[in-house]
């Protein structure tokens, strides 16, 4: 049992590109639900549009990556409007069901065979991020110690992604402290009161949906860049649940919550998986148990995540940094 390896793997995942991607997705969700009270269960749809929009411009139409990224984010804006205009007038549980359904519709359409010419269907699209990695000024080789190390390109993605995380956190913080943010938070707490002051609450909620969705779209763009490709199997409804798990872990309606939550989420997830892998390679487990654990670490870590979510809600529903006060609002 080598704890250096386990800790190295966990730390690599906790600071790696995936954690930054989930931090971005969770920052968007935090704006949606934590501040504006919108129960968005379709965040993966925004990530998918950001990623596929970028990839389609580059791989299908042969355009520049720097046109692809704004195109992907533009698709996110369009999706937010198409989703929000009809459903934001409804109660929040209807909104939740509609968003999860809309994201899955998009995924099924993207991977269907009629769309193969544009989206690559079940094969996805590849080789899209060359002009992004051309900008990489880091020398070749690996950076870090033991299992806690990254390749030059991974480190480059991480630098860009974490800078985006900081920028988006700052943007959301600034928005929330602005007059606009006060109206949005007031809508979450009592929409009727805000309506009676003559504010168009649907417009405010729509703006929050668009901004949070674009931040989710950025997460998708980073995902497409770090893999230099897209595939529909990366955008199953589970991804939204994982982003929610990260946000809840860190704490709703806080600035650092989504970021710390995403880091912790990946640290714990990879730590558990690495621990189980190490465990199943030890000789001293009974054979039947070792066979059972072999290759099962992914499923086991998600089982533990499920238990963790239930336990967190039962014991500390506000998350690590959350305040109890903001719990009963917005639902």
């Amino acid at each position, binding site marked *: 049992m080598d704890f250096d390896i386990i800790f190295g793997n966990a730390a690599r995942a906790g600071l790696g590109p995936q954690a930054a991607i989930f931090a971005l997705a969770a920052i968007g969700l935090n704006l949606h639900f934590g501040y504006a009270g919108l129960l968005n269960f379709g965040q993966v749809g925004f990530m998918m549009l950001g990623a596929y929009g970028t990839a389609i411009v580059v791989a299908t139409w042969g355009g520049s990556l720097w046109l692809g990224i704004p195109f992907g984010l533009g698709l996110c804006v369009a999706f937010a409007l198409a989703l929000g205009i009809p459903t934001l007038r409804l*109660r929040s549980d209807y909104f*939740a069901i509609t968003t999860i*359904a809309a994201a899955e519709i998009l995924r099924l359409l993207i991977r269907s065979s009629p769309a193969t010419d544009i989206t690559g269907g079940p094969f996805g699209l590849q080789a899209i991020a060359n002009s992004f990695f051309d900008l990489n000024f880091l020398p070749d080789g690996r950076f870090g110690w033991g299992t806690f190390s990254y390749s030059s390109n991974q480190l480059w993605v991480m630098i860009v992604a974490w800078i985006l995380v900081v920028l988006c956190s700052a943007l959301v913080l600034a928005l929330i402290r602005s007059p606009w943010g006060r109206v949005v938070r007031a809508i979450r707490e009592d929409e009727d009161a805000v309506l009676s002051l003559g504010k168009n609450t649907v417009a405010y909620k729509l703006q929050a949906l668009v901004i949070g969705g674009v931040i989710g779209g950025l997460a998708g763009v980073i995902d497409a860049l770090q893999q230099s490709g897209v595939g529909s199997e990366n955008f199953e*409804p589970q991804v939204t*649940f994982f982003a929610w798990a990260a946000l809840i872990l860190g704490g709703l309606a806080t600035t650092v919550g989504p970021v710390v939550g995403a880091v912790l989420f990946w640290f714990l997830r990879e730590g558990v998986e690495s621990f189980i892998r190490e465990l199943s390679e030890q000789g001293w487990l009974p054979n039947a148990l070792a066979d*059972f654990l072999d290759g099962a670490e992914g*499923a086991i870590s998600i*089982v533990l995540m*499920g238990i963790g979510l239930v336990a967190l809600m039962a014991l500390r529903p506000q998350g690590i940094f959350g305040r109890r006060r903001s*719990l009963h609002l917005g639902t």
Partner: protein
Amino acid sequence: MSNARSLRSVVALVAVAVLSLFLFGSAQAQDGEGEAFSGTLRFGGEPVEGVRISVVGANGEAVGEAVTGADGRWRIELPGPGTYRATIDTDTLPEGVTLRDPERQTLEVTVTAGRSRPLIFALGEPVSRGPNVGEKLAQAVLNGVKFGLIIAMCAIGLSLIFGLTGLINFAHGELVTLGAILAWYFNADTFGAPLILAGVLAVVVAGAAGGGVEFSLLRPLRARRLGMFQFMVVTIGLSLLARHVMLLFFGPDRERYIDYALQAEWTFGPFAVTPRDFTIMALSAVILIGVAVFLQRARTGKAIRAVADNPELAESSGIDVDRVVLVVWVAGAALAAVGGVFFGSVEAVDWLMGFRLLLLMFAAVVLGGLGTAYGAMVGGLLIGLVTEVSTVWASPEIKAVFALGVLVLALLVRPQGILGQRERIG
């Protein structure tokens, strides 16, 4: 004090998970020799020799090729799991032998780790023009009613639980899977019980599981006045937990029940239906009517409707709301499990079947009217019909898109649903 209680419920949950580990034994996918495509080419019952078949990977890179032997067999080893395209070289077919369907010269197939996938290139006379649109439509309507009845049965619990407690149960799909998988263990895997007995056992266990979740976890949490959002997260956690425990024990593959797998179809005019599917449709209809009669006539049924209508008023008029909620959880879970057994019998059993069905159930309950049992029935039937009828014109892989599209449309036009009341959408 309250922390100790919730801790107890968590411990109970873990205990159930661990217990189920020992109860059902391991059925993980065993690693075979490696990923491969294989098959046997036959023409009129005779093997066909010397035909070349080639496989390319996702990026079009050549993976391997094979030539059929004297027994018509061929096999191509693959480098790993993934999606591949296998093409039969029609130039190498003997004189007078053609593909039955020229469009199926290239097959695109996804292979999971350690599985060898059989591929079929059907040789022979091209089939006569196939059924016309009218016949296809009739068959699609029949399939739609079949799946609609099953979806309706699965969705009743989802809708009633929402109506009673305001909870959107993201783990409802897992109750469907649980029923189907337990029935498979009793029927095909461990005990070899007849499917009907296996199904009844599975439904009883799933009902108890639903009741257990309500009694040991949700009821204590409700007493602590957790918000709607926290409850949603709890059910998401339960759903992730249950789904992946089932993945661990059942494995990632699709399985079938032993009984009623292959049957000759009965034909009534344009409709063709196997005795199995006919029985399932009849049973589903009987069960749905039974639920309706129960809700209308029985004391508990009336109490359920009263609580769904106004929990406070119902409680103050002497109805034991906690008991009613428990009854709905047990019955809803049992109905979902029945749906799972039926669905597994009609199609196949796999660990994600319930989760895939969950979105259709959501569509059904919102379409019919969130919180009502009859709404779930009407919505389920409609969703079943829409998905199946869409396959007459559109590719079957996007049939769920039509169901979810109907959901979005319905929200625009009549958000309270077909049978819902205006005030519910608030």
